Structures are given as structure tokens and as C-alpha cells.
């Protein structure tokens, strides 16, 4: 198992090199920010997509302070920060950066990138998701994105090509769901940290290769020794985002006696439970799946009822012992949802721990963070 994970990690790290080679051959490199930007459309346009989702280091968020106040979440600030520090190998060669516009954090950082004369293209995602016109708006935004991608690449996004890409993406989802299903048994060979990493690898490895690797991994996992002992507290890891590289918190949970048996994150992870239907108008199907069918993201309004219900369903179905809520500094909307969720979980007798990160994992910050996690898991164990 470890070998497959290492190969996938190497494939992810190698992606910028492959993109540069593809660019030399005339392919367009298109970076994108957020799950509301369908990478399938970028692939269908014959371009190479690259998800901007790096985080977990303190310097990049601080690098943008020259341009903005610090009251933006560190993930959003990192998006431009890595580029400003010269640590982003892809942005300098990107032909286009497609950024979803759903919250003020990404919105402001898109402006900063625009000011830095980066080729930003914005896809509007209205948060009032229950109103008819907002779905139409998002649907039209995807149709406009199609035009933009076709113009940028000179390639037509045909229904057939898009269908092929959606099927490939669904194939990855299907395999991730199989791996996720293994987590229903606590004596499981793969933990939540590796599962989150697998999701990340799926964004950076070629689709076909990823499907093959996941098949091999599933086969391997069937005979692999359990990584977690029976009785290990089953944790639902929920919240905003685990950016690529920001693995400290999930790692600490699993190193200190917890097992991330389920996840519910808005970004940085594939929405692997929601396949795009392959019959009919594919762009409309994509829009419907992301905007209407999938459990709404926190930033949608009002979404708390659906989200609380979904968490409670996960708690029941996945036999969750406790919930760890992971959000970033200055994520006010997540703060508000966290309060509601904590109340509901409290009434159901499910322990809840809120953790907030500013990507400051210094020695001094790590001690208290570890204490919180260790204490929480120890208390959950005692209560079991």
C-alpha cells in the first residue's frame, strides 16, 4: 500500500514538470481554484488543469500582507503567497487561472492576483442556492467558462469529450467510495489522513493512471493488515479545507489514538459521493450536481439545516464516536456553523472539538495543539 501511495505522491510532485513539458508541446495550462470549477471541462478543452490548493505553511499567507489586511483565511492568502515567494512552479506558466467566486476571501485574493497581472477568470457562484435564478446564474457561468476555455485553447468542448471526462472523474469517485467504504470497519488498513492525501493525488495525477493506481490499491487493501485496533475512537473530520500539504491536524488525530472514519470537507477534497449523471445535457448535469444535489457547502445560505442533517446522518451511518471540526483563522461563516453543529451534536451526546489553524505550526503552537487533540481523544476513549 505504502508503495502505491508513494508513487501517487511522486506523480503529484512531478505534475508541474509534466505541465511544463505539455506547454512546450502547445498545450494550455489552466489553474483553477475551488470545486465549483469543473476540471472535466478543462480536460475536455484539451488543456491541462492544475488545482491551486497548497497550504499549511506560515510564510505564504504573510507574503500577501503587502496587498491586504491579515483578516483573510490563510488558505486564500497562500494562493497568491506561494507565487509571490517564487514557490509556485505552475502559476508563472499558467495561461489562465479560473477562480470560483463564492466568498470574500477567494474574491479578494483573486483581485490581488488580477492586480499582479495574472490571467484570472472568475466563475460566479451565488450563495443563495435555493433561489431559481441563482442556479441559472451558475449554469450560465459554466456555459461562459466553456466559451472562455474554447477561446483560450482553440479547441471545441464537444458533448462527447466532456462526457468522456465526466465518466473518468466518476470512475475516480467510484474507487474512492470503495476505499471510503473500508473505513466502515475500524480495523481498517487505511486511515483518514491517507484518504485525504489520495484525494489530493487524484487532482494531480493523470486520470487514467489514477484509476489504475486506485484499482491496484483497492486490491492491496483487501489483504493489508489493519492499521487501527478495534475500539479506536471513530472520528468524523469536518470543516472547511485540508489544503495540499496541511496534514498536521489529521495526522495528529490518527497518531494520538483516533481513526478518521469519515470526512465532510467543503474544499480540497473530491466530492466523491456525488457523481455527475452521464445522460442528457452534461454541463447542466455538472451544474445541478455541484449546486443543487450535493449537500451544500457552508458558504451557501441558508444551508445549516441540510448540513446538520448530513452530519447527523454520517454520525449514525458511520458509527461516529466524536467529531473534530477543522477551520481556518478568520473563517467567520464556519465559526457560525460550528456553533450550531456543536449544539446539535451535544444534544445527541457526541463529543465535539473545534480546531482552528492559521498555518502556524511552530514548536510553541504544536504543543497546545497536540494537547487538545490528545486530551479530546483520551476523553472520548474514557467515555466509550
Amino acid at each position, binding site marked *: 500500500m505504502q508503495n502505491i501511495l508513494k508513487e501517487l505522491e511522486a506523480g503529484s510532485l512531478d505534475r508541474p514538470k509534466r505541465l511544463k513539458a505539455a506547454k512546450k508541446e502547445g498545450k494550455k495550462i489552466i489553474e483553477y481554484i475551488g470545486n465549483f470549477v469543473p476540471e472535466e471541462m478543462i480536460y475536455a478543452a484539451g488543456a491541462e488543469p492544475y488545482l491551486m490548493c497548497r497550504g499549511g505553511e506560515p510564510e505564504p499567507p504573510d507574503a500577501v500582507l503587502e496587498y491586504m489586511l491579515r483578516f483573510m483565511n490563510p488558505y486564500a492568502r497562500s494562493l497568491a503567497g506561494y507565487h509571490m515567494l517564487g514557490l509556485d512552479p505552475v502559476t508563472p506558466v499558467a495561461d489562465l487561472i479560473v477562480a470560483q467566486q463564492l466568498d470574500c476571501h477567494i474574491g479578494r485574493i483573486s483581485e490581488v492576483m488580477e492586480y499582479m497581472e495574472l490571467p484570472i477568470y472568475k466563475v460566479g457562484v451565488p450563495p443563495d442556492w435555493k433561489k431559481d435564478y441563482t442556479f441559472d446564474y451558475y449554469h450560465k457561468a459554466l456555459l461562459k467558462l466553456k466559451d472562455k476555455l474554447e477561446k483560450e485553447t482553440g479547441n471545441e468542448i464537444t458533448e462527447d469529450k466532456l462526457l468522456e471526462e465526466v465518466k473518468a472523474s466518476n470512475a475516480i469517485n467510484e474507487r474512492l467510495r470503495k476505499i471510503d467504504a473500508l473505513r466502515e470497519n475500524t480495523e481498517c488498513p487505511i486511515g483518514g489522513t491517507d484518504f485525504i492525501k489520495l484525494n489530493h493525488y487524484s487532482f494531480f495525477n493523470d486520470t487514467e493512471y489514477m484509476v489504475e493506481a486506485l484499482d491496484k490499491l483497492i486490491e492491496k487493501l483487501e489483504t493489508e493488515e489493519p492499521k487501527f485496533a478495534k475500539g479506536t475512537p471513530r472520528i468524523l473530520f469536518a470543516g472547511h479545507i485540508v489544503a495540499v500539504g496541511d496534514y498536521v491536524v489529521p495526522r495528529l488525530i490518527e497518531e494520538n489514538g483516533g481513526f478518521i472514519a469519515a470526512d465532510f470537507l467543503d474544499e480540497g477534497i473530491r466530492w466523491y459521493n456525488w457523481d455527475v449523471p452521464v445522460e442528457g445535457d452534461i454541463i447542466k448535469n455538472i451544474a445541478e450536481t455541484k449546486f443543487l444535489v450535493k449537500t451544500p457547502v457552508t458558504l451557501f445560505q441558508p444551508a445549516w439545516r441540510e448540513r446538520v442533517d448530513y452530519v447527523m446522518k454520517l454520525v449514525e451511518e458511520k458509527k461516529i464516536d466524536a467529531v473534530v471540526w477543522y477551520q481556518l483563522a478568520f473563517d467567520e461563516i464556519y465559526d457560525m456553523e460550528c456553533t450550531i453543529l*456543536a449544539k446539535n451534536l451535544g444534544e445527541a451526546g457526541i463529543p465535539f472539538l473545534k480546531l482552528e489553524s492559521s498555518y502556524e505550526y511552530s514548536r510553541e503552537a504544536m504543543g497546545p495543539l497536540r494537547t487538545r487533540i490528545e486530551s479530546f481523544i483520551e476523553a472520548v476513549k474514557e467515555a466509550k
Partner: protein
Amino acid sequence: MEENIFAGVDIGSTTSKAVLINDRREILSYAIQFTSFNRDKSGQDVFAKAMEKAGVDRKSVKYIVATGYGRRSLRIADDVVPEIVCHGKGTVELYPGTRTIIDIGGQDSKVIELDQNGIITKFEMNDKCAAGTGRFFEVLTERLLGVSMEELGPLSLESEKPCVISSMCTIFAESEIISFLSEGVKKEDISMGMNLSIARRIIAMGKAGRIMFAEPIVFSGGVAKNVGVKAAFEQLLKKKVDAIENPQNTGAFGAAIYAQGKYEKNKAD
């Protein structure tokens, strides 16, 4: 038959504590000393002191659990347990039925909620700044007010009109206190103002974590020696707060109980 002895060593940011207990969980000895930069040595030294006080040798100590900020540094420890859990365990053993623990140590403060079975259900901790911790008093007391830590509590109880210290930051609070002193405000009123400021901050921290400060409330940590802070909590919460008699040893005591439990479990396995 030789008695089994278990040790809990709590290496805090300011002080290190060790407690030895026997099979009946009776405290045989307790030792405390300042924590140096070498946390392993601090832990070993305080453990040696506790053994000396109890008149026991190393061989009779069957299991050692380390806790506190420096718990991972103690090389002789058989296991480590986080301090929040140890505080909970130790306090409930000493004060059965405790539902809320307010613990203010040298560099951090915690509020812990327990259920009727003594299981921790919620906790909150302040770990990123000195405000709301023992260090807040250390910085502001002797140098500014010219009174010792021991005198501060009784002095503050004589306050008739506590001043309002609004700054949450130790550094800004220092400026505020200097201003009060230059205006001729009485030390008693400044002391009580400090107590109320720290209590207000810790209550807000707990409430942010949905801790309702259910009774019985037990106050532990070095700052629990300050009767003025206890009074401030009682005034603001409008509830009775019991300060622990030896407020600094609950973490080490809890660790010793864990040591006993782990030893017995290992033996049974």
C-alpha cells in the same frame, strides 16, 4: 507483601510536580520545583524529591506517567497522558462529583466540564498568550504593585471599589495599571480589578466552548492559591467555587492514578 507505588510527574511551564501514590490511591508524597529549560532533568529531580520524601526507592515505583507541557521530555516515564485528562482524573478523585474545573497555571488556563461520572465532556484552553494565566500576575504584581503573590489575594479582598482593567493583553494591562497607580487608585482596588479581569476572560473562554459552569466548581492550578481570584469567579458566576487545598498537584495526582490503571491493565494483559 511489598506495596506497589505509582508516580505521576507533571512538568508544567513554570513548575514541575510529582506525586507518589500506593495501591489504595493514598498520596505518599508530593514535591514541587521550578521547571528549568531542561524539562527531563526537572521531571527527574522532582520525582527524586518525591521518592525521598516518601522514603521509597526507584525499584518500588512500578509505573510512571508524565503529564504537562513537558511530558514528552521525561525519559524515565512509562507513558504520557495529556494534562487536561490528568487534571480531570485527579480532581474528581479528590472532589467526587465535580462538574467544572477552572485551572489556571503558569502559562495556560483551562476550563474543563465533566459529566456525572467524572468523564470530560468539554474543555477549553488559553494557550497563546499570558493574559489569563499565572504569568499575568507574575508580571504585574511584584514589579508594579510592590506586593508579593501571597499578599495579593488577601489585599484584593479589602477592595471597596475595584477598578476596571479592560485590556486583555498583559502588556496593555501593565500600562493601564501604571495609569491607575499614577491617579492614586488604591492597590486593593487595582488587585481586585486584576482578579475580575482574569476571571472575566476565563469565563468568556469557557462559554465560547459552550461550558455552562455547572456546580460543583473546583478551582485548581497555582493561581487558585489567590483567594481574590476565587472571589472574583464567585462574584461573576454567582456560584460557589471551591479552591483546592493543594491546587498544584491535581495534574500529577491524576497522572499517578493513570499510572496505577495502566500498570494493572498491563499486568492483566
